[in-house]
């Protein structure tokens, strides 16, 4: 770090091209900035921000989310285990159940937080990273409502008109399930190498909350329905700031962090 410039001159005349004396301020982590932006947008649409524990048990992380034991679907989440049936949550979805247990619908929440995956790290995979979960339950909350909310979120987040596209997917906790693509920001949907010439970028998983999940949360699926989604916060940050390696977020490298 260089020493700040000391200026001592005589007379009234100043040189306006001399660099100003900058106050020393620090920097917030890019993921903090992204988290705040996400929270701000969803709060403006009436979503409350909720948090939950990072250490979970199998019930909240799997069973209650309709992922039974000994089911191949569990392999979709590579999990870190601790002793006594505890584990590091593999998604923020357990908070859906914890919230439903204590609150009556209608409601809309988002859940930002750190999650863990037992995966080899590379430029796009980390052992811990961030996710934001969304859940909206009401009398007639539909997939069309989800699409409107997510289009609005993306457009506000990226500061330009962005569209989403829903494709079939499978998650045990939603039915129907969607894979959500968004307009490629590099080419604005025209097709380029970033999006494999499709004009679309894979963004997140979503769907209509599975009746078994509502039941596990103590809500009668005959009367209530809704959508849920989960977005990788690191991925949002990478797209927003054009960062090409997820590991930079957890490197503590000040040459990286001081850019934010």
């Amino acid at each position, binding site marked *: *770090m260089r020493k700040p410039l000391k200026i001592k001159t005589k007379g009234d005349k100043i040189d306006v091209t001399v660099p100003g004396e900058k106050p020393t301020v*620090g*920097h*917030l*982590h890019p*993921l*903090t900035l992204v988290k*705040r932006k996400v929270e701000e947008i969803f*709060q403006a649409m*009436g979503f*409350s*921000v*909720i*948090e939950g524990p*990072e*250490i979970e*048990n199998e019930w909240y992380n799997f069973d209650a989310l309709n992922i039974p034991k000994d089911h*191949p679907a569990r392999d*979709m989440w590579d999990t*870190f*285990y*601790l*002793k*006594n049936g*505890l584990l590091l949550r593999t998604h923020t979805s357990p908070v859906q159940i914890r919230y439903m247990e204590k609150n009556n619908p*209608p409601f*809309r929440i988002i859940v930002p937080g*750190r999650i863990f995956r*037992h995966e*080899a*790290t590379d430029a*796009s995979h980390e*052992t*811990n990273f961030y996710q934001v979960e969304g859940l909206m339950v*009401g009398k007639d*909350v*539909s*997939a*069309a*409502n989800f*699409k*409107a*909310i997510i289009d609005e979120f993306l457009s506000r987040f990226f500061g330009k008109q962005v569209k989403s596209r*829903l*494709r*079939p997917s499978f998650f045990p906790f939603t*039915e*129907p399930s969607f*894979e959500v693509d968004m307009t490629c920001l590099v080419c604005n949907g025209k097709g380029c190498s970033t999006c*494999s010439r499709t004009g679309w970028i894979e963004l997140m998983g979503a769907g*209509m909350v*599975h*009746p078994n999940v509502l039941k596990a949360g103590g809500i009668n699926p005959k009367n209530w*329905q809704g959508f849920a989604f989960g977005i990788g916060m690191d991925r949002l940050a990478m797209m927003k700031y054009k960062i090409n390696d997820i590991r930079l977020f*957890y*490197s*503590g490298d*000040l040459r990286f*962090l*001081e850019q934010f």
Partner: protein
Amino acid sequence: MVFSYNWLKEYIKLPKPEKLAELLTMHAFEVEEIKKAGKPPHHNKGKRRGAKKTESALVWREGKDYVLDIDVLPNRGPDCFSHIGIARECAAFTNSRLQIPKFKLKEDKNLKTKDFVTVEVKNKNDCLRYTARVIANVKVGPSPKWIQERLKVCGLRPINNIVDATNYVMLETGQPLHAFDLDKISNKKIIVRRAKNREKIITLDNKRYNLDKDILAIADVKSPLAVAGIKGGKKAEIDKKTKTIVLESANFDSRIVRKGSKKLGLKTDASWRFEHRIDSSLTETGINRAAEIIQNIAKGKITSGLVDFYPKKVLPKKIKLDYRYLTKLLGLKIEKKDVKQILKRLGFKIIKEEHPILIVEIPTFRLDISLPEDLIEEIGRIYGFQRIPAAFPIVSLIPPKRNFEIFWEDITKNILKESGFTEVYNYSFIGEKESEVFKGAVEVENPMSVEQKYLRPSLIPNLLKNVIDNFRYFNEIKIFELGKIFIKKQDYNPPTASSRAKGAGPSRNKKQIEEKRMLAGLITGDAFYQAKGVVDSLLNKLGISNVWYDEYKPTPEQSKISIWHKERCAEIKVDGQEIGFLGEISSGIFKKTKVVIFDIDFEKLIKLCSEEHEYQPISQYPAAIRDLAVLVPLDVKVVDVLNKINVAGGALVRDVDLFDIYEGEGIVQGKKNLAFHIIYQAEDRTLKSKEIDKIHQKIIKILEENPEWEVRK
């Protein structure tokens, strides 16, 4: 899983490969890759998140085959790990007719299957169905080119006409089959049973496996012939001399295959399919199709009748679909005739229609469908999820709840940022070495590496690592982190069986691991007072008063392992309650440079934060400042001097500022000089000089009551 384009085309009229890939992606499953057959497979073991690769300039020519790498969703294994299954999907979204060629089985009336082989299944929960057929007088040899080509396109190695036929049928229908040499089976009896502990098998690839009672075996009266649903054994292998074969087409329990496959570390095309479950009705179709092919390509006589263990026949489910719910859930109106057409193309039957209700019969191969929501997904995706419009929900204006924890987190981070600190996010893990210094760490059962063997019991070790990593580029570092730590609880009792039975697992307050948010900041250099100032200013801005710093007095035992420099650290207290530590890190544990750290329990801090703030009226009368310097022994604490000044000065002393501490040249050995500004001010009048002098003298007098203290005049 890879599929042959030409093979699919046998069942249905298809668009060109690239278009087909796009349609599959939008209506069924993502296509990872399309490539010309014959090129080496593009290995993409990564998860679905990985980048997709598609050959850009794909010129399609009639006659040449293409390989589609389709990411079949895990719930669709039962029907779509097969060419017929994928073709059925295509039929639905292209709205055309699926044509599965019919075949005729020529059984030999004189030979009865049950005279050749008997089957005994020990436990019907392990094996839901076991179907066997015998083909006598086969001629084992290489299979014809068309079969070999297809297998190769799909990544399988041709072996001989018998084995190839069974693999072909697996790729076609999804039913794994196995062929045994009947003459190598003792007593011509097949027994499906759990393996015995320490029982051994040598598999077809000449590998030796130790089995146990968690693994299902196919055996004769003497020893195992195969690991059920996973791999065949050497003992009853088909070879050139094989004359009579037994075909096995079975349905093994998915859990036992999954468990066995994991235990043996053996994943095969068959085990993969069984793990994802298979329709029990399929064994019969599969075995008949295989028998027909074998008869065509390896001659032989098919014995008449099936040996079929099938205790619990699966029947098609019926689901009541409410058309109004379909519209309400998707937020999209689909014409009823379209709904019915889609269901029909997917193989569903509408058995009753009473507006707005449809009663739909689900074919047994759709193991994934059991709820109306499942059917709605089918209709929605084939119709096209991309056709769902964007429509904002109509809801009551319930304002979002305020999250105070996040509110205070944000404020804290802003204050530290403005004080010149940069925020870091470190891993929630620490290594073996750090865990020896930072005690109480929770061990991860399956860590990724030695460096990530434990959950962090403190934010400090990773902050120290940040210093080492950054010291090459920066000579002054100010960083902070706000994150969760995890500490093993000593007095934990595991949940009892009854508390666990309630489903919710151990309750929060009984958790054996304490998980809490900590706030830690670090400054390099001799920066104790700088760090203390940061903490003071932070607490002040969070609306916390009554802050106190206590010398930390560890027990001899604690001090041995303490990370803190024992003469340069303090407990941070608010209202007498300890909320954290402030101090220099002992050079015994960190040698790189001097670092000062504050480490605050954020959960405690949040409870003390307050937005309440009251304005103090500004006095209309002027303040007067008098300086005072006092010489005291080195071990005297500033706070003691301050207290004396405040007590002696009373209400008219508005503030006392320490502005200099000096020891060394010009000062008596063993003493230090403390210099203060004393600010005098009254709220109701201008203080007269005489009045101030009087108080000032009183302060001096009281300070000098201690013979070792000397006010410098």
